[in-house]
């Protein structure tokens, strides 16, 4: 099992399956807040939903509606179960806060390189700890 250390953005503990993208995410105009689906044209996750996933992404871009759309995703019951990201911005900070899901950043290894979609990820946000069980190990186990 891989252990990463970083800092809390939103406290709490959670675990779930990773959904990883190297593309930054837009909120307004980038996601459907009713389903949690990525809708941005030319986005590598277009058509996939982050509902119930640990969303691992570089950071936020685009409209200032970022927080409101992730907020609405929470109200619709389709928010990500946790968030792990690299680049701190006001969009992603406020978005994570109002999503209410545990979130961490500033990890000691690049999460986009060491976490793959389908890996099992545990977040202890207050301690800033992320534990990753690789998908291969999961299927072997």
């Amino acid at each position, binding site marked *: 099992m891989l252990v990463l250390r970083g800092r809390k953005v939103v406290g709490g503990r959670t675990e779930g399956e990773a959904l990883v993208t190297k593309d*930054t995410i837009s909120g307004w105009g980038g996601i459907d807040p009713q389903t949690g689906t990525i809708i941005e044209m030319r986005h590598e996750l277009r058509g996939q939903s982050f509902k119930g996933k640990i969303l691992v992404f570089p950071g936020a871009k685009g409209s*200032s509606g970022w*927080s*409101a759309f992730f*907020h*609405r995703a929470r109200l619709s019951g389709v928010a990500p179960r946790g968030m792990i990201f690299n680049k701190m911005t006001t*969009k992603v900070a*406020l978005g994570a*806060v109002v999503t209410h899901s545990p*979130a961490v950043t500033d990890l000691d290894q690049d999460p986009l390189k060491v976490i793959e979609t389908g890996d099992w990820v545990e977040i202890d946000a207050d301690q800033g700890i992320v534990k990753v069980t690789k998908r291969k190990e999961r299927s072997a186990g």
Partner: protein
Amino acid sequence: MKLTDSEKAMLDGKEGHAVQKAMDLLVRYGDALGAERLVDTKNVCGTVTAPTPWKIEMAKKRGVEHGLHAGFSEMNLDSDEVIEVPRVKVYTCQLIQQYGPDTANLHEGSRDVLNLQKQADGFFGSRGVHIMATCTPYQVGNVPVRGEHCAWMESSAVVYCNSVLGARTNTEGTESTGAASLTGKIPDWGFHLSENRFGTHLVKVEVPVEDMMDWGLLGYWVGEIVQDEIPVLSGRIAQPELIKLKHFGAAASSSGGVEMYHIPGVTPEAPSVEAAFGPRRPVQTLSYGNKERRIAYENLNHSAKDRKIDFVMLGCPHDSIEQIWLAARQLEGKRLHTGTELWIHTPRALREVADRSGYTKIVEDAGGHILSDSCPAISRMMPRGTRVVATDSAKQAHYLPAITGVQAWFGSLQECIDAALTGTWSGGLP
């Protein structure tokens, strides 16, 4: 975060429950950012009136008053407890919102939504929120002074505020601007701090950038490359006016997340290239030539296939009065193609000027419409049956296909007007 005594008093509820909730959110948000303190702001641009599906549901179940109190509590303070909305504490403007009931005959949008928007205008206006109802508050009197700390939403306005005006704001959100309006505070982080405002990337512009379309293409390319970093533009750039920087910033904050840029000799914090970078060295030097221009054009027209145009959308960000005149004079004495609609968007205050100047009549005589308050991407409302859109806005061409599933052609104002008159897209990159 370190709070002052007066901020602690707000957090302890000494200024009422709504202010307490607002301060609680600002503390959670500031801690998430890693901010050390809050900064005073007397200039907030946010969105409190827009009838989101959740608010509409609330208003249906519990009445409009309750729905608006509940909507503000949830969407502007992140509180599931319904709190009575007090008057705002500092200068606060409503940004772009939903269309009003005066547009009801133009689209198939629900009248309930349009009516709730009008009721929300009155509700929040009575609490001191100025219903400017535009994505361009700087066109209708909210022009902050250099160095002024602001709490603004709307990515195209944020980048204008930082870059062109030299005022200081991060890209705030619905919740943080709600909290700022009640407290006069916002986290002192990012663009509020001088050391974060210097350039990061040098962009050498090697093809002439002169007209509106040039500025849109440059912005769209730069944003996609630098994402949320700070480009410094040098090279073959003609002296821009407000409308060109409005377009450039909107494009760069759509393809990427540009919140600030410098144009040495033009924007206030960059008297020279050296001053734009300050103590920093450019992390990358980029060249913008014909190839890059073409990439931006093709990316913007990625969704477009069919050349029969149903709808021409102008005014994203909202048009200046000059832009309305430029469109009107090409429409004078002509008629739109049957089956092609034209909507031109401008702040309601400028609509008044267009009416007085006779531009509205010219546009309407040709069969077009001038609208305010919203846009198709924000409202998700378009003329009935729209499949293919033409627009002179890089931002609208970027978002509209993703949000509504239409195809979008991006081009010049002239190409868009031609499309409105002929019903056919004949634009292309010269």
